[in-house]
């Protein structure tokens, strides 16, 4: 079957019940999408389906057919980082970095929907994304920065 990933038409194996996550990683070598739990609870596997964040580990590959799939690899344009990627870099919002692709895609989708989100909106959008290094203060600071607010993280 065919999938449209980061603007490109791609052919993948069709196995009923197989997840979008495993298909992207194993058939297409798109490794920026990460396995974290396999039950949609940590959002390390977030991709955008027609611009909306979904947990690809519990999304059957069939559900993605005919839709535009965006992964972390498809976010930069001609080598120029997406503002959310740049903000994560500027704030140093990463420790091990494993949750970062999911965090960035979720935040990018939020900023597309709400240009200047409140903290409550950011927290609500990203609360489902787990970071076990618990780098949350800088993640919040990065999303604020990408939205044009440079006040930083949760600091007293």
């Amino acid at each position, binding site marked *: 079957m065919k999938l449209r990933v980061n603007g490109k038409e791609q052919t993948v*194996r069709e*196995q009923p*019940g*197989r*997840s979008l996550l*495993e298909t992207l*990683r*194993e*058939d297409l*070598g798109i*490794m*920026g999408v*990460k*396995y*974290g*739990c*396999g*039950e949609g*609870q*940590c959002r*390390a596997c977030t991709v955008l389906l027609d611009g909306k964040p979904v947990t690809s580990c519990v999304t059957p590959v069939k559900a993605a057919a005919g839709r535009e799939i965006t*992964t*972390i*690899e498809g*976010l*930069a344009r001609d080598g120029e*980082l997406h503002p959310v*990627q*740049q903000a*994560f*870099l500027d704030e*140093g919002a*990463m*420790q*091990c*970095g*494993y*949750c*970062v*692709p999911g965090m*960035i895609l979720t935040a990018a989708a939020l900023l597309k929907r709400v240009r200047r989100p409140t903290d409550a909106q950011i*927290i609500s959008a*990203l*609360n*489902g*994304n*787990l970071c*076990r*290094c*618990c*780098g*949350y*203060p*800088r*993640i*919040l600071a990065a999303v604020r920065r990408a939205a044009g607010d440079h006040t930083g*993280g*949760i*600091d*007293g």
Partner: protein
Amino acid sequence: MAEFEPERYELREPPAYQFDPGRREFLFIAGSGLLICLAAGDAEAQTGRGTRLQIADDGVVTVFTGKVEVGQGSRTQIAMAAAEELGVPLEKIRVVMADTSLVPNDGITAGSRTTPSTVPAVRKAAAAARNRDVTDARDWRVLGKAQHHVQGRAIVTGAHEFPSDIRRPGMLYGCVLRAPAYGSTLIEADLAPAKKLADVVAVRDGAFVGCAAPTSFAARKAVEAIAASARWKTEAHPSSRQLFDHLKRTAITEGGRPPRIQTKGSVDQVLAQSGKRVKAAYQVSYIQHAPMEPRAAVAEWDGGSLTVWTGTQNPFGVRDQLAQAFQLGNDRVRVIVPDSGGGFGGKHTGEVAIEAARLAKQAAKPVSLRWTRAEEFMWAYFRPAGLFEVEAALEGSLITAWDFTNYNAGAAAIESPYKTAATRTRFLYCNSPLREGSYRGIAATANTFARECFIDELAQAASADPLEFRLANLENPRLRDVLTAAAKKFRWNERKEKGIGLACGTEKGSYVAACARVEIENGAPRVREFCMAYECGGILNPSNLKAQVEGSIIQGLGGALTEEIQFEGGRLLNGSFAKYRMPRLRDVPPLGIVLLDRRDLPPAGAGETPIIAVAPAIANAVFHATGKRPRSMPVRLG
């Protein structure tokens, strides 16, 4: 500075596979197993390559280290150390980490040792390359300045390859048959249903059963086909409800693992003569590291040589485990550790590497194996649970006797920093129902929790303010400094509201104090404010130190309030992210952090020690809010 005390749990339970060397597929390596008897204690002596630095003609410097990067910031810090001493820009430094064929054996990445051991080794080598002494901290140009992650761009673009992202030509994906419960042993497994499936390789070797296939979906289906008819023998296993009785009942007071006892003066005598005695018991539950990236490995055989890419904190140890499992000389095994998705002390062993290698051997193709979250919860190891019994005598606001007994939680940082004429500290080994291992701040967290909660009880008994009581009984100037700094940041002396608490401690050459404010919301404590002061000598990278302190505080919220492994009948009751509640963005309170930079003192590691003060500060704040002493970690109300 305190010397490193190896944790008893650091390497306690290596993977248990016993492969059968008589099997045909092992024949061609027979005779090469000359080094298999490598004793664990020799691992340090079995060095990898000795080269520490290479300077190329174009000025690019390659630094070699056996340390790994799991998010604690070692890669950036080591690059900074080399840049500082060589006087070259950071961009010119490349750090090759944890490839056993290329790097010196810097030991396991544990015990916060990268900063006090490896960074000085790199600095020394770099300075020697320039024929000069290492730079005095007062003259630092690179060290001491905030530097974000040197791999940042690869991480934000998704280009960074974690161990689970490694791909090799012709690679298959693996899946392993797991026992249904702890203590289960396999009686019978029929591989035929799996072998009937297209392109599936299935293997049984002793207790090991696994499959490899062109997709992980197909490998999983093949293992499910075997599991459907596999027969197991099960054993009784204690439940988490009986855990603390079980630990106390099985405490080993003599024989194979005698207790560790330290005494000064006569505790019994002082207690007997004291007008004021206070006594309490505390419990600490098992918790799971739950790194975002579970254990993962890609194994590839080339004739009788094996290369494994895997996420471990112990590259040379895993190399030796592989050599032993496959009866190879350890010069035939290469372990490469790509920067991994979290460790927290949870990746000290090589089971996934051995499993991937066994499957790859069978398939005669490279095999990628990544544990599922359920496997990671159940079959990785846990931070030890523990039980504490503490008693003390008071004279006014001074502690005159201190009697502290720790069942099972581990001995690190068991000594009380408070001055007392008579002390007795005891650590007793117990039978642990679950597999135990290291953890970020492992035993220091448990010991500091029991001690700092109890110190609060003593302050209450002495009708003293918790801060004043501590300062009256503490002599160590570095500990007093962080306590005073945290209290100042938190405005402890001006606070009138309910729900505040503090705690302090020291471990691995670092000093920490914390203040918390909590509110009880829908019957559960919520942390509304948290301050921490931290001192670890001279600060090498303020950006990374702050990240480690923030991460420790927030990860510590989980252990303090919500994380606890529950088990029954040999199965976990909450072994998934849906049931095991870890801190999320919404749980993060406003933080106040004070980093004391002591450039006059050698830098100590800081990935662990900040976490030790978190739970007791919160527990003491919960007492202040409710009037009831929480005596367990995680804190339970009512």
